[in-house]
């Protein structure tokens, strides 16, 4: 059974139809990539899953439960975390406070402390800067913090919205290798990327979104060598 299932999902901003009749499935343990041009509706899809946007039509099923009508905090509690586009860390708060806030829905103090040290193992640069306010971190460090913060709620499904945005190639590789590690440790990942090639190389399956609708889907391996996808998204 799929961990997350979107059935015929439609989302509007007023009169603008951002997502129309979208179907998508993610199985436990997978890394799934969602690619598409600017404005295709990728972030909208993630926001709808996190319940930050109203769904006009269709349903979202997570872990066998209908979550379409739930509030954002309930969804986080159920095990979905998002690292939003533009790595919205809380700039005025310390790195440590950002991590604590990521664990806001949890009550197990010992577990939280434990997970913070685990995040510091995964992102040693964050440990060196734990008292610093997040706004003073470099772009790459802020992205790491955004991912670490999302992980602090112990999600079953981690959604990353353009983690490579505006970062240097070296840092991007580091981030992708961390994504691979998180997946190897058991976290299912939904990855939204502009950097299509790299994202597909790091994922099991890919969905291609165009103007709010899925146009291609399949294993990332196959799509990487598909001529149409190659032309449109991989600059080939």
């Amino acid at each position, binding site marked *: 059974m799929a961990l997350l299932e979107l059935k015929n999902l439609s989302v509007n901003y007023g009169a603008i139809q951002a997502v129309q009749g979208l179907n998508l499935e993610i199985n436990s343990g997978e890394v799934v990539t969602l690619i598409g041009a600017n404005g295709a509706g990728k972030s909208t899809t993630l926001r709808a899953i996190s319940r930050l946007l109203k769904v006009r039509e269709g349903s979202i099923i997570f872990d066998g439960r209908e979550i379409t009508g739930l509030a*954002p*905090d309930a969804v986080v*509690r159920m095990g979905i975390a998002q690292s939003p586009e533009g790595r919205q860390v809380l700039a005025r708060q310390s790195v440590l406070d950002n991590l604590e806030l990521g664990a*806001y829905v949890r009550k197990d103090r010992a577990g939280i402390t434990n997970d913070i040290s685990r995040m510091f193992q995964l992102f040693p640069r964050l440990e060196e800067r734990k008292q610093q306010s997040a706004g003073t971190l470099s772009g790459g460090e802020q992205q790491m913090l955004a991912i670490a913060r999302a992980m602090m709620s112990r999600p079953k499904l981690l959604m990353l919205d353009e983690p490579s945005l505006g970062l240097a190639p070296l840092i991007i590789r580091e981030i992708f290798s961390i994504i691979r590690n998180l997946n190897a440790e058991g976290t299912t990942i939904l990855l939204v990327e502009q950097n299509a090639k790299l994202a597909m190389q790091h994922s099991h399956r890919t969905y291609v979104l165009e103007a709010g609708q899925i146009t291609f889907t399949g294993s990332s391996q196959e799509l990487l060598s598909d001529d149409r996808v190659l032309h449109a998204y991989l600059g080939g």
Partner: protein
Amino acid sequence: MTDFLQNNGFLLVTMVQQALLAMSLYYPLMCGQLSLASPGFYALGGYVAAIIGTIEYFAPWRDSLGWVIFPLEWLAAGIISGFLAVLVGIPALRLRGIYLALATIAFVEILRVVCLNLEITGGAIGIFGVPQLFESRWSYIWTFGPLLMLMLFFSYRLDRSRVGRAFKAIREDELAADAMGINPTRYKVLAFVIGAVLAGVVGAMSAPFLNTWNARQGTFDASIAYLAYVLIGGSRSMWGPLLGGMMLSALPEILRPLKDSRLIINGFVLVFASIYMPKGIAGAVGNLKNFTTRILGIGRSEK
């Protein structure tokens, strides 16, 4: 010493009272909400105390309870203000920024007009002869002073608590806070209620202090005065409203010898402070501390 207190006691108590009212704006501001509803809850709390203190119905209570009736008045004012704040806050806090400020001003006006027309609040005349808790005005420092201490302690703890962290996250980025599983509406209403309860209790302490209570206690002018306290004092920590409230409420009195020109100087101070201390007096003091730490190496903390 006693002479000084006799002469300046009223001013001193007023300064503490105004600082408390300034702090009532601080809690909503902790989560980024500019609410100007405090004068409404202040007026409401004062009416609660004035009514319990004067009407026939409560006479047996007053006779049997003695001074204990006063803390009960504060409690009643706090509960009623908190309850009304939940009712008003849930719809009002859907609004943001200047719209919330306008809605809360409207709330203050509606409450004022209602009190102006009810019989139990004494209509336009108000309520006279509210029983006094103390004989002299300055003795009221024993009610307002401990309340201020309590609120400072409360704010200090709140700032470092889970709830305080949620407040600050919402102030910084409501959408991000929402995505992290912090329910912004719940915390905004909570902050609004805390401010309202404080303003209500201060009102209940003020009715005996002022001896009389009427609809002029909760007006638009008061909303603006409290806003000035917070703007001039600073809103990033509890010290801002404290300093702003004390200094601005004392300023007209200190300038009294200057007669007519005092209003000009008062206005000049406000303009000067808002241009040169954008983070308020508390922020400027903080900067000065950073400056001395950095340049002179004084007061450097370990770490």
